[in-house]
């Protein structure tokens, strides 16, 4: 038995095929979801993939957040369904208030594409259990609006509750406050991060590392043993 992992395609989503491939490589049944459908096709978890949904016009994630599929996802996420937001997906999750804070233009004002080192700060979420607490991983990062901000109170709360899930190491590529690369909600089922684990699942391709596969094996184990 395996689990069904859904990947949403919004107009302008780019990394949906990669996320589907990563889910498949981890052993899951990968299912395409369409932004106009409220129906989630009985998936057990959802990935909101990277890209420029609606061109990132207005603000990254601002328009997609109001799509029909998001209505169901917001509802289900609150009920505990695992949701992973990668890059644009993370932006959508903050716009939908499933995760606190907001994403702004990189502090250097350029798009940046690099092989980025991260520390897994919380290996207890639905998407990170296959990592060690404190493990250092390296996955591609590529974004224009990757600067995570939230007010001090929220940041302190995130830190105190262990909800900073990933932190940038070596260099902060976009000016994110407290080097935050990704966060989780209280329950640990909703996780968002700017770097792209789905681009680091095959040796040879991309940077040639497979450090990102753990996201997909983590969730699969959780769903299959659940």
């Amino acid at each position, binding site marked *: 038995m395996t689990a069904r992992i859904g990947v949403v395609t919004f107009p302008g989503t780019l990394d949906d095929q990669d996320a589907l491939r990563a889910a498949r490589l981890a052993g899951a049944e990968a299912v395409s979801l369409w932004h106009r459908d409220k129906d989630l096709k009985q998936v057990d978890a959802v990935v909101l993939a990277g890209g420029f949904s609606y061109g990132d016009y207005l603000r990254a994630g601002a328009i997609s957040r109001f799509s029909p599929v998001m209505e169901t996802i917001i509802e289900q996420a609150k009920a505990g369904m695992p949701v992973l937001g990668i890059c644009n997906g993370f932006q959508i999750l903050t716009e939908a208030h499933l995760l606190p804070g*907001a994403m702004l233009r990189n502090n250097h004002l350029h798009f940046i594409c690099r092989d980025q080192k991260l520390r897994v700060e919380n290996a207890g979420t639905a998407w990170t259990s296959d990592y060690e607490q404190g493990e250092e991983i390296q996955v591609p990062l590529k974004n224009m609006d990757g600067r995570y*901000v939230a007010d001090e109170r929220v940041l302190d709360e995130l830190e105190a509750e262990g909800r900073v899930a990933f932190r940038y190491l070596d260099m902060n590529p976009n000016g994110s406050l407290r080097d935050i690369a990704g966060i989780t909600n209280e329950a640990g089922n909703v996780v968002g991060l700017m770097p792209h684990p789905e681009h680091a699942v095959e040796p040879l391709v991309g940077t040639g590392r497979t450090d990102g596969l753990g996201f997909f094996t983590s969730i699969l184990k959780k769903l299959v043993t659940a």
Partner: protein
Amino acid sequence: MARVVVDVMLKPEILDPQGQAVQRALPRLGFDGIADVRQGKRFELEVDGDVDEAALARIHEMAETFLANTVIEDFVVKVEESK
């Protein structure tokens, strides 16, 4: 037909690298005496029909839920002109 403008600016406490980049460039271009620059967005909405209280209230809501992200941005709604 009337025009309503929604100005959206980053909250003062949020770093505005675009504004800063502009400000830093100004002296190099020979413009002095600008103490601060902030860059935001301006939306010009052409509204069908009259902009009465009810219409303004709706636009206000639109700005609050959609045009601005109030976690990081403030906004102002203004009726600009009518034709």
